[in-house]
């Protein structure tokens, strides 16, 4: 009676169940669309076309996805250590200061590829530093990290407004932001890659080199979690603190290191916003990406491949949603947030809702596929 539920084959676990969850989310979202008197099928078409229909849409989708990959990876690393880092938003925001300082210092002197590595270091350093205090408080004082990281989001928001308005904003500027960054701090666009597939010329989309950085980070996170000693310790600690203590793994060390890495990854999101898009440090530059990262990490099962796919999905919802609210006036921006919320609800919070049914289904079709062989052969 130790395992009441048999396990599913990997493809069903990682492919079928998320797809079913997503389908249910869209069906419910469709009902919401119907409720406001629009045709849900047309809405779906507009959403998908807006995200993938033209080169411009694809570029925007991937630009948004870049943000979510960074913050999703950040949440995932902490999650593997059993820590719920809700502070990605604040960490990304404060990291913007690190990126900004590097860029303001270098953008007139050196080309972008010299600034870029320094900016990555600046983002990682400031993001990690902002995560360090909650991590320290959790490890040494037992202050719950969910509470402290939420509070640090608030502190970050106020701190950044102060720094931007009172210190970094040029006198003459109307808006609260730094001066415009010049060529040495502007990342090259990658729109040409999409154009290679024969789409029309993309004029303004900010899809840029930080997407590649995000992919590199996804690989490094995979390597860290599943192939290094540190990752082994993080996962052990995340699954069972007692087992970690038994194995001689330091609770304090793992908590702090995992949160530093998490903060650094969240921080890199600001590179995409500052150097890839706006070319200045501005108010609310994280724009909610830190929170979307939580949903992305949950939906992607804290695995880098899952996170990339979930990030693209949320990129679609962002970009396609913008098109949708433009095309269908009855569907406001808030409606789009409702649809995103439904996706989070079904894919994240309720991810196990359909699992027992699917397991029963699998068991009745093919007992072998759900590990019955393993159960039978257990007699020692």
């Amino acid at each position, binding site marked *: 009676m130790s395992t009441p539920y048999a396990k599913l084959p990997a493809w069903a676990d990682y492919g079928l169940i998320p797809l079913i969850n997503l389908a249910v989310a869209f069906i419910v979202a469709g009902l919401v669309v119907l409720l406001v008197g629009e045709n849900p099928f047309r809405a779906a078409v507009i959403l998908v076309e807006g995200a993938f229909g033209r080169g411009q849409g694809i570029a925007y989708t991937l630009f948004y996805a870049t943000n979510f990959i960074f913050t999703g990876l950040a949440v995932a690393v902490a999650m593997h250590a059993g820590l719920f880092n809700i502070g990605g938003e604040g960490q990304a925001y404060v990291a913007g200061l690190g990126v900004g300082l590097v860029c303001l210092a270098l953008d007139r002197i050196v080309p972008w590829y010299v600034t870029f590595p320094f900016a990555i270091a600046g983002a990682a350093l400031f993001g990690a530093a902002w995560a360090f205090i909650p991590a320290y408080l959790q490890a040494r004082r037992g202050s719950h990290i969910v509470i402290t990281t939420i509070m640090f989001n608030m502190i970050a928001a106020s701190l950044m407004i102060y720094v931007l308005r009172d210190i970094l904003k040029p006198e003459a500027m109307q808006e609260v932001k730094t001066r415009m960054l010049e060529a040495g701090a502007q990342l090259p666009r990658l729109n040409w890659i999409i154009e290679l597939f024969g789409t029309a010329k993309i004029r303004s989309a900010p899809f840029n080199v930080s997407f590649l950085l995000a992919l590199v980070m996804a690989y490094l996170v995979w390597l860290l979690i599943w192939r290094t000693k540190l990752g082994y310790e993080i996962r052990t600690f995340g699954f069972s603190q007692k087992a970690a203590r038994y194995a001689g793994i330091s609770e304090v060390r793992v908590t702090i290191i995992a949160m530093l890495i998490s903060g650094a990854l969240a921080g890199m999101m600001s590179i995409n916003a500052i150097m890839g898009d706006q070319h200045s440090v501005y108010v609310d530059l994280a724009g909610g990406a830190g929170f979307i990262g939580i949903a992305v990490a949950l939906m992607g099962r804290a695995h880098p491949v899952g996170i990339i796919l979930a990030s693209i999905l949320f990129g679609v919802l962002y970009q396609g949603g913008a098109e949708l609210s433009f095309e269908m006036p009855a569907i406001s921006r808030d409606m789009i947030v409702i649809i995103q919320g439904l996706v989070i609800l079904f894919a994240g919070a309720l991810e196990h809702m359909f699992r027992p049914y699917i397991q029963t289904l699998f068991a009745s079709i093919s007992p072998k596929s759900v590990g019955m062989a393993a*159960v039978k052969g257990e*007699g020692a």
Partner: protein
Amino acid sequence: MAEAAIELIGINKSFGAVRANRDINLEITRGTIHGIVGENGAGKSTLMSILYGFYQADSGEIRVNGKPATIRTSNDAIATGIGMVHQHFMLVDNFTVLENIILGAESDALLKSSIAKARSELERLEREYGLEVDPDAIIEELPVGLQQRVEILKALYRGAEILILDEPTGVLTPAEADHLFRILKQLKDQGKTIVLITHKLREIMAITDSVSVMRQGTMVATRETKKTTVEELAELMVGRRVLLRVEKGEAKAGEVKLSVKNLVVKDQRGVTMVDDVSFDVRAGEIVGIAGVAGNGQSELLEAISGIRKAVSGSVTLDGKPIDLTGAADPGELRQRGLAHVPEDRHHVGLVLAFEENENSILGYHNDKRYLKGPLLDVDAIMADAKDKIAKYDIRPANPRLKTANFSGGNQQKIVLAREIEQDPGVLIVGQPTRGVDVGAIEFIHKRLIAMRDQGKAVLLVSVELDEIRSLSDRILVMFAGRVVGERGPEASEGELGLLMAGVEQKEAAE
């Protein structure tokens, strides 16, 4: 011919793909004590949970006193006269006995009249069955044996004619267990029907009238207790012949490997759990620590293995001290040759969500053999895991399988393989066969004896007195945090039982 109190006909129950009960037929005669034995995972608890309304059978019929019964909730079970005494008591610790008895069976909106009624009824039950308990005592102040008595009274108060007891002696001293059996016999004489679930065959032989054996979800046999033997039952449970006695030669004890002096350990609440304990474990011997669960054995193991801080005292390993104040680093102790098989393999000894191969390096993950720079050497880990799987006959032989999907016995083998194969000088082992099937117990015991014969020092903690007696070369008994006596392996069960119950003081005074 007495009629059946309970008839189960063709009961089936599956959890997902696992068939926990298949085509179970069982008839329990009224006014008898009926034992149900089987290894862990054989389906005993599932079957009883169906009878008590925790689970619904997928198919099959339950008849109580000859009439078909529909039991959907525990209230239905109570209404049909079935009561259950759980392995882990379902009592509210800070309520009195009386308050616990009426909990869920209050007759009015106001408690006062219920309590008055309950008190006279309780007193009647206590007199009738010889189950004396002070109705106004607070549960947490009662010893475990009395708490169990409250559970039995609770069932009787609700009018139970059929009483199910799930592993009732797991937490009792031998003397308390004997007392329980006397109570059960008395209940039987009064016409109650008793179903006793246990894995201890000796208890079955001592008290039951008939016994049913379960294996892998099926009912393999029902016997009249008089006409069967322990050997036959063990064979039915496992499906093959089992060696119940451990064969071992004389111990050749050598130099002192592990020495504990005046050790004091407190738990999280600041209660002294280990009180001035001293002993030595020498090379080539097994020292067993007997005692009822909760008398400080767990804390002792944790302090020695570096998981828990000690308050004072000293522990030396190969003559060199272990730092106990800052909670010694378990990783460092491992390097010094102290291996630890913890009591709780599910949460401490293993990470159940890990693949088998990942657990085969837990605690030894800093070892250079498993690393390539900062990266894990996956090939080396896998080869090592396969090697251990073969040596310890771990099934299924798949190092990529999630650890949670192994049976209890095989999980324990994973831990043992990891710790023993590091070739430690000292092995400390907590409850090595708890929740382990009979077949694996035999294997584990042989391994521990083999460690001893190789000249290793083994410290064994177990609440199974049989295990302690058959493995140990010296037996220490712990009671209330102290070592209250040391005996040789030839000490009788009664003698050890008295020590475990804390009756040593008088004897020492003589």
